[in-house]
């Protein structure tokens, strides 16, 4: 199938497809591409995962550092989440300081994990007021064919769930598993050809409008939302998306829990 490269023509083409309820790759509106999850793939990370969704490939790696707790929270460690999309992952990415897009990407994934409360920062305290663990989750894109958000979110939580706190290496006790309470997961939707679709490809993103990211916890609670890009949507459109996200996060959670 030949797909127009000029954004304007691509937009028109996507709208025609949408009118016939079709997508570029023959998926249905709410279908995902093939999803593959591997863990323990990075020898130098204390926890790691590789996620592939179609031709989108990402890694997540967990590292630990010792930090001094903040004065007003002497019994808490910290969680830091950083997303880098370097030129490796696509011809549109350039080296240099992070763009507004990649700052948004990192912060949205970070909030989904952080706000779910799955990392109990109190459990990271070593000596109150003096020493605590800082968990650093680094998200790294290898190939961007669309929907980096969901790929990062899945890789991130899987890497955290595998992570071993390197107590011995830092001389503060034995190695131990990082406690992770719950599996927050993100589902992302792009408006393409006038209607929302799940798990958009890079070309659908290119010829589409706004996107909505929903992070849900084990019990279906909402932990994070984000609308990005130019576009207008209605309450009923949102309710339809939310309905799909409730189902789909359950499916992915089951896959992860049987890894």
């Amino acid at each position, binding site marked *: 199938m030949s797909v127009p490269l000029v954004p304007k023509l691509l937009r028109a083409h996507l709208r025609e497809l949408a009118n016939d309820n079709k997508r570029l790759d023959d998926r249905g509106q709410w279908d995902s591409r093939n999803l593959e999850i591997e863990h323990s793939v990075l020898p130098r990370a204390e926890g790691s995962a590789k996620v592939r969704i179609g031709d989108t490939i990402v890694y997540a790696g967990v590292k630990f550092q010792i930090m001094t707790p903040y004065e007003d929270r002497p019994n808490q460690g910290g969680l830091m989440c950083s997303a880098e999309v370097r030129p490796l992952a696509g011809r549109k990415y350039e080296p240099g300081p992070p763009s*507004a897009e990649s700052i*948004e990407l990192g912060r949205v994934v970070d909030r989904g994990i952080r706000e779910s*409360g799955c990392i109990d920062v109190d459990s990271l305290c070593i000596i109150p007021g003096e020493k605590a663990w800082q968990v650093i989750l680094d998200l790294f894109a290898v190939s961007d064919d669309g929907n980096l958000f969901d790929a990062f979110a899945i890789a991130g939580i899987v890497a955290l769930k595998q992570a071993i706190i390197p107590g011995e290496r830092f001389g503060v006790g034995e190695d131990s598993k990082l406690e992770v309470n719950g599996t927050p997961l993100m589902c992302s939707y792009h408006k393409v050809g006038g209607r929302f679709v799940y798990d958009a490809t890079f070309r659908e993103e290119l010829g589409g409008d706004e996107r909505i990211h929903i992070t849900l916890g084990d019990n279906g609670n909402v932990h994070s*939302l984000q*609308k990005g890009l130019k576009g207008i949507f209605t309450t009923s459109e949102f309710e339809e998306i939310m309905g799909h996200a409730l189902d789909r996060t359950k499916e992915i959670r089951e896959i992860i829990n049987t890894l």
Partner: protein
Amino acid sequence: MGGYGDVRMIDDNGMRMDGRGPGDLREIFIETGVVPVADGSCRMIWGTNEAIVSIYGPMEAHPRKIQRQDSAVLAVEYNMAPFSTTDRMRPGFNRRSKEISKVTKDALESVVLLELYPRSKIQVNIEIISAEAGTRCVGLTAASVALADAGIPMTDLVVSVASGKINDIVVCDLNKEEDNYGEADLPMGILPNTGELVFLQMDGDLSQEEFKQAWDYNMNAASKVHEIMKKALTGGDGE
């Protein structure tokens, strides 16, 4: 989201510490034309929040490579002044401000008729002079008033309000103390004439029922704020 459930922020009658009911807004004041050298401007006081917004343009976009052949580009700068917070805010690059600038731009681009001004640029500058909770809502709302003050055609104004949760109770428009103990925050950007959305963020923990309540509070509050915005734009100062 702090989430310290042991501090009581709402009494048995559902009244909040500042005397508001669950769905009530803080006091709001809007004034236009406050930056004389700008093409449009707005000052908005919302509780102890204060934002000043100036609009420059439509003007020639330069350098050329940022020009779009078939529409204007919209540039949005959201920034917190160093004296706007209890602990001084250091000037300079800040990831939070960068993200808020971006989602505010995404929201405004959804209503401004950019295609009327090819090759030009509209600059929107949002400065938070005093910050309580909810500065991004104040900034976005004030920006849409300032754009109207500059005579820039839009399909609708944007009203941005947030609801949240404290002590497991959903309430509208958290003030700073409530926010410190808050368990969730749901800011939305609403087109008052259609009820459609152009801006949405959320973080914290809300069950599906709580989420629907917060959503409804925001929809109701948007109409009230809209009245104040219209008043400010069509005559005396809004309040």
